[in-house]
């Protein structure tokens, strides 16, 4: 088997890379695929918290690299889904503890036995970023509809274009608020695509449920009712090559309006 190695990156911090990694990983695993999530944010790890796995971590990626354990031993199985496991970052080390070749080797090994290896990238364009992309052959660039985030995403897309191994780079637009777009206070999806000019893989609405889900250590894709959860499930399906119709992100309206909307051509597409 040769699994796909996808790096989730952004340039700017705090735009939702880790949230996206946890949710897409969970959704793919729920769909029956074997998935490993790698947290490469050494010293500022979070992915374990979002998955509620912090108390199960015995070995980290640094232990693997420094040969204190085997790669298999360091994979922490998800509580609910045996298809999903996590390779945690070391909390007490800095980014110099790992180099790009080492990460590539780990990705290469993991893709032999997994359908997906998702790499959660740290913010920035230095060593941490170089490490995270080293083993990847696809990339998802996360941004929010803000000028500063888009500027950084643009920079990252440029850098990714120089990496021959990366065959596909897609855009995930996070924290979208249709009401703000309507009132012209937020850039529209079309505006963002217009600037970045790469294919869109998903649009995730701003959802306060994400905060509660983070605190509980339970990705929001597990919540059948949350709109952001649905949006992330759709992203996973698109990664799997399915054509998924676009979600209506408009604020909930009357039943009839929803039906009408479903047929209407939407400006906001997921």
């Amino acid at each position, binding site marked *: 088997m040769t699994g796909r190695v996808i790096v989730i990156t952004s340039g700017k911090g705090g735009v939702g890379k880790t949230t996206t990694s946890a949710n897409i990983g969970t959704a793919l695993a729920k769909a029956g695929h074997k998935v490993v999530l790698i947290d490469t944010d050494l*010293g*500022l790890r979070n992915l374990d*918290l979002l998955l*509620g796995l*912090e*108390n*199960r*971590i*015995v070995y980290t990626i640094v232990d693997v690299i420094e040969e*204190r354990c085997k790669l298999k*031993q360091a994979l922490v199985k998800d*509580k609910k889904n045996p298809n999903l496991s996590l390779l945690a970052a070391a*909390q*007490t080390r800095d980014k110099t503890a790992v180099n790009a070749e080492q990460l590539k080797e780990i990705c290469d090994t993991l893709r032999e036995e997994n359908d997906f290896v998702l790499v959660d990238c740290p913010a920035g364009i230095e060593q941490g970023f170089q490490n995270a992309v080293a083993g990847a052959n696809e990339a998802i660039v996360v941004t929010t509809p803000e000028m500063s985030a888009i500027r950084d995403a643009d920079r990252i897309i440029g850098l990714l274009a120089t990496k021959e191994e990366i065959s596909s780079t897609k855009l995930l637009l996070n924290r979208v608020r249709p009401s703000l777009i309507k009132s012209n206070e937020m850039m529209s999806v079309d505006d963002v695509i217009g600037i970045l000019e790469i294919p869109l893989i998903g649009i995730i609405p701003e959802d306060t449920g994400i905060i509660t889900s983070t605190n509980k*250590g339970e990705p929001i894709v597990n919540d059948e009712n949350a709109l952001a959860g649905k949006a992330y499930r759709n992203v996973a399906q698109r990664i799997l090559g399915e054509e998924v119709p676009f979600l209506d992100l408009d604020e909930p309206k009357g039943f009839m309006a929803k039906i009408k909307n479903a047929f209407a051509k939407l400006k906001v597409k997921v």
Partner: protein
Amino acid sequence: MLLEKGFVKNGFIIDLSNAKNTTQLVFELSSIMEHPDVKGKNVCLKLGGSDLKQSQLLSIKALIESMDSSIAFIDTTSEQTEASAVSLGIMVSKVSDQDIQDGIVGTLPDEVSEESVMVKSEEISLDSSGQSEASLSSSHIETTEGIEDIYNEISAEELSEIIPSEDSEKTYFTKFAANEGLLNDEHSKYILLDTGNVLPEGVEENSTNTESLPTLYLNQTLRSGQTVSYDGNILIIGDAHPGSEIIAGGDITVWGILGGIAHAGNAGNITSKVRALKLNAIQLRIAGLYARRNDTLNVPYVQKSNEFTPEVAQIEDGKIVIYKKLRRD
């Protein structure tokens, strides 16, 4: 014989009737009592059929009082528990399921008829506000008042006077075994990881007396990402935040809230202990045994309080067990 509904002012019902055994009962109670909302309340304990000896009930009472609360009354179906309660001057009554739904919080009825309580009348005192005190018998435990008092040395004789202990002083406060079968996974505070013994190759288990080791004294807060490691014992005056790591050849003592990883006896010393005013470590490691905090207790940041009951983790019979203690061992 029944107390009227709405009797307990500022009351709180804690239903422990499903506890499978005393250990689990006390464990659940102590987790509930840590919640800030339960402070300063009159607690009604639903104990179901649990048979509690006088000493056990007294420990429970001390636990509740250490959180500034008091027992209003208990609801029990066990004759033994009832007898223990009567001898301790704790009222016994019944709560119906309806009361639980309604919550029993309310105001005191103007008059409480004498026969409405089971204990002898002189032990019930009504103060001017009409609030009833479930007046409790002589053996009040002074050491639960505040942190300074906790470590007051109490001699074994004194202790056995205050607490009529059944077998050993260790049974005074509860022993929470990580995975003894006593407690199932859902209810243990710490659960051993199935990694087996994680000692690196070439490191042998040993029982060096940790008192003979030097001690590193640190007066600071350990923050996420910080590691302290030392061959001897480590004493930290301050909190160890989640994301921090303490690795000691001997004992680890945190005079504060321990929230990160603590590894005592990392060179194989199985007599090493981890002590903290509040033991909330995400993982406890002693020698080659690793235990994770129960998922149900995943509240990474604990509120500060002056009323923590210090806890000690140590290895016994190949398991990590945790004692809640009010005194130095």
